[in-house]
């Protein structure tokens, strides 16, 4: 039984780490939702796009090489240089900012005052568009991200837990890095939104668009800022997930994992995104651990596996029935 408990704890800690990764994606959602009331489905694709761009720039790929080759019958692939990681990251951030500006300019500007559901669907369209553009620009093969992040078993934790319990926990170094980065991001975001002028303007817009406009805050500028920050967060999430499982199409599906996190935490709360992520991460790992264990099979006569696909949604669904605005969301007040 002690063994089972230790395995369970290990699963829970790993779940906590994965949960932090979910939170990274959810954070971008919350920021955009608070500032503009847009539920940005494209957040996951932005992560994919960011990671693809980073790899592409770092390895000196020619953008749209496939398309150019198909049209002109040439065979170009690479510029033939390799950029250092830092330069590539800075350039990618530039691309994400440009992207934010374009989105505001070409899409959101025309959709002001539309119903939220229309905006939501527009971001689904944006997601498809960007996925296609990302693939066209950089090719759709699986890429490896090489930023010098350490990966694999953390030996300090392994040795320490072995000394204490006689069983070494397997915690991935990358997950630890991701957790630390997530914490830094949240702290930085909090400081930015509490103490900087732009940050305060951002909070004002989140509170009340009309009032913010009337004191002279440019809504459109704020939206560009928010989308740029969300793009940056997406880049971070894309880098962490990409380092974990390779930069590939399935990266964009983390959006779907971030959705229950958001529901649980509430669409409007940054701490909610973090805590929701952790609950989902720990919950799905523990649930999988329990229902696939042998004593569950002895008790119920069957075991289940691969429950991670749906557990988060069902948990969020059940949770929402009792608290429709999520854990930390603003109370939904409806008037006729």
């Amino acid at each position, binding site marked *: 039984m002690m063994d089972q408990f230790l395995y369970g704890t290990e699963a829970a800690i790993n779940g906590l780490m994965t949960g932090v990764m979910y939170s990274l994606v959810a954070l971008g959602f919350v920021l955009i939702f608070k500032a503009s009331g847009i*539920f940005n489905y494209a957040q996951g694709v932005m992560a994919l796009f960011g990671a693809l761009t980073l790899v592409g720039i770092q390895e000196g790929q020619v953008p749209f090489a*496939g*398309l150019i080759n*198909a049209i002109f019958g040439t065979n170009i692939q690479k510029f033939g240089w390799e950029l250092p990681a830092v330069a590539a990251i800075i350039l990618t951030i530039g691309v994400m900012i440009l992207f934010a500006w374009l989105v505001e300019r070409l*899409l959101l500007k*025309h*959709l002001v005052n*539309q*119903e*939220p*559901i*229309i905006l*939501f*669907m*527009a971001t*689904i*369209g*944006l*997601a*498809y*568009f*960007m*996925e*296609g*553009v990302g*693939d*066209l620009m950089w090719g*759709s093969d699986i890429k490896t991200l090489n930023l010098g992040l350490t990966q694999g078993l953390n030996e300090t934790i392994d040795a320490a837990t072995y000394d204490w319990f006689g069983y070494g926990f397997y915690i991935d170094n990358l997950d630890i890095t991701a957790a630390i980065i997530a914490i830094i991001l949240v702290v930085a975001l909090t400081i930015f939104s509490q103490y900087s002028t732009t940050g305060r303007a951002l909070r004002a817009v989140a509170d009340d668009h009309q009032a913010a406009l009337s004191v002279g805050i440019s809504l459109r500028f704020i939206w560009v800022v928010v989308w740029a920050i969300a793009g940056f967060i997406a880049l971070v999430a894309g880098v962490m997930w990409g380092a974990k499982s390779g930069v590939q199409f399935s990266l964009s599906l983390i959006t*779907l994992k971030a*959705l*229950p996190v*958001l*529901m649980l935490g509430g*669409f409007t709360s940054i701490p909610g995104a973090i805590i929701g992520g952790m609950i989902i991460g720990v919950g799905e790992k523990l649930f999988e651990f329990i229902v696939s264990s042998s004593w569950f099979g002895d008790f119920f006569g069957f075991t*289940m*596996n*691969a*429950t991670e*696909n*749906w557990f988060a*949604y*069902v948990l*969020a*669904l059940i949770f*929402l*029935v009792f608290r*429709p605005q*999520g854990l930390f969301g603003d109370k*939904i007040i*409806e*008037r*006729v």
Partner: protein
Amino acid sequence: MFYREAGDYKTTYAEDSQTFPLKLDRYAYYTLLAVAFLVVPFVINDYWASAVLIPFLIWSIASLGLNILTGYCGQVSLGTGGFMAVGAYAAYKLMTSFPDLNIMIIVLLSGAITAAVGVLFGLPSLRIKGFYLAVATLAAQFFLVWLFNKFEWFYNYSASGQISAPTREMFGYEVTGPSASAPAKYMFCLVLVLGLAWVARNLTRGRIGRSWMAIRDMDIAAEIIGVNPLKTKLTAFAVSSFFIGVAGALFFAVYLGAVEVGEAFGIQKSFLVLFMIIIGGLGSILGSFIGAAFLVLLPVLLKNIMAGALGWPIDLAAHIELVIIGFLIMLTLVLEPHGVAQLWRVAKQKLRLWPFPH
């Protein structure tokens, strides 16, 4: 003959409230039906049936279903793929358990089973609204797909985990199974589409449809004037899931013949149907058909142009297709949030005054 009411005398209430009050519309509709029933079955070949016509008919049913829920009742659902899977597996289990049952009855029963499942997943909609509901319906999508993969009873313990449709006949013609002919499949789908579209049209303009629209426009206000939200939302879920279940059953039994659940009824299918109704028009029967036609034809067209005529690699064509679909969705929403059907409505208004606008 001009396109307007003048000169077309109605002498009964039934005539006054018919679907196509204008003579020209009516004739166009009858002509379309005559072509669909009397011409197409004789000229159809396998390529047109499997690439264009049958998918178009099946997706029309699915988008009619989703349009009832999302366009008319305002409940956004991303669980379409999961509900189609319910229809498909219900059809499979019924076909293999009751070999003598008529295929038409099986398809309709699969719809009914899906309706029951839909009501179950629609229950939270009473508490959960808007985006929260959209995400909650994802629970249905992922849970149902997982369920059909996990429990072997659903696919009769077959080793491959696939389900494949046995041969069934209708009036002596095979409509399912590997040797079914294209005209038979086409006619079978066409009859169902026509029947279900008629049901949808008449439901949406009657009392039930109006209560759906009242809930969509503002649920609290609707409740105050006496629309029962529980009943209204659940009927929307039931009717919509019935349509989607029928579409799923047809998609499996008639169109594909053999399916693997994760591949055939994944989340992409949910989005595909959602796109159909956005591009076609939310809250419009005609829009469901336009959207389905558009998203069925577009990939075929693009594939033929890019891979066929220009000789580009297929994966490149697939990426460009993504870009174009995404772009069109954004373009539709920016230019006309109510979809192509709204353009048609505007054009009809203009046509009524032509050639003397003042």
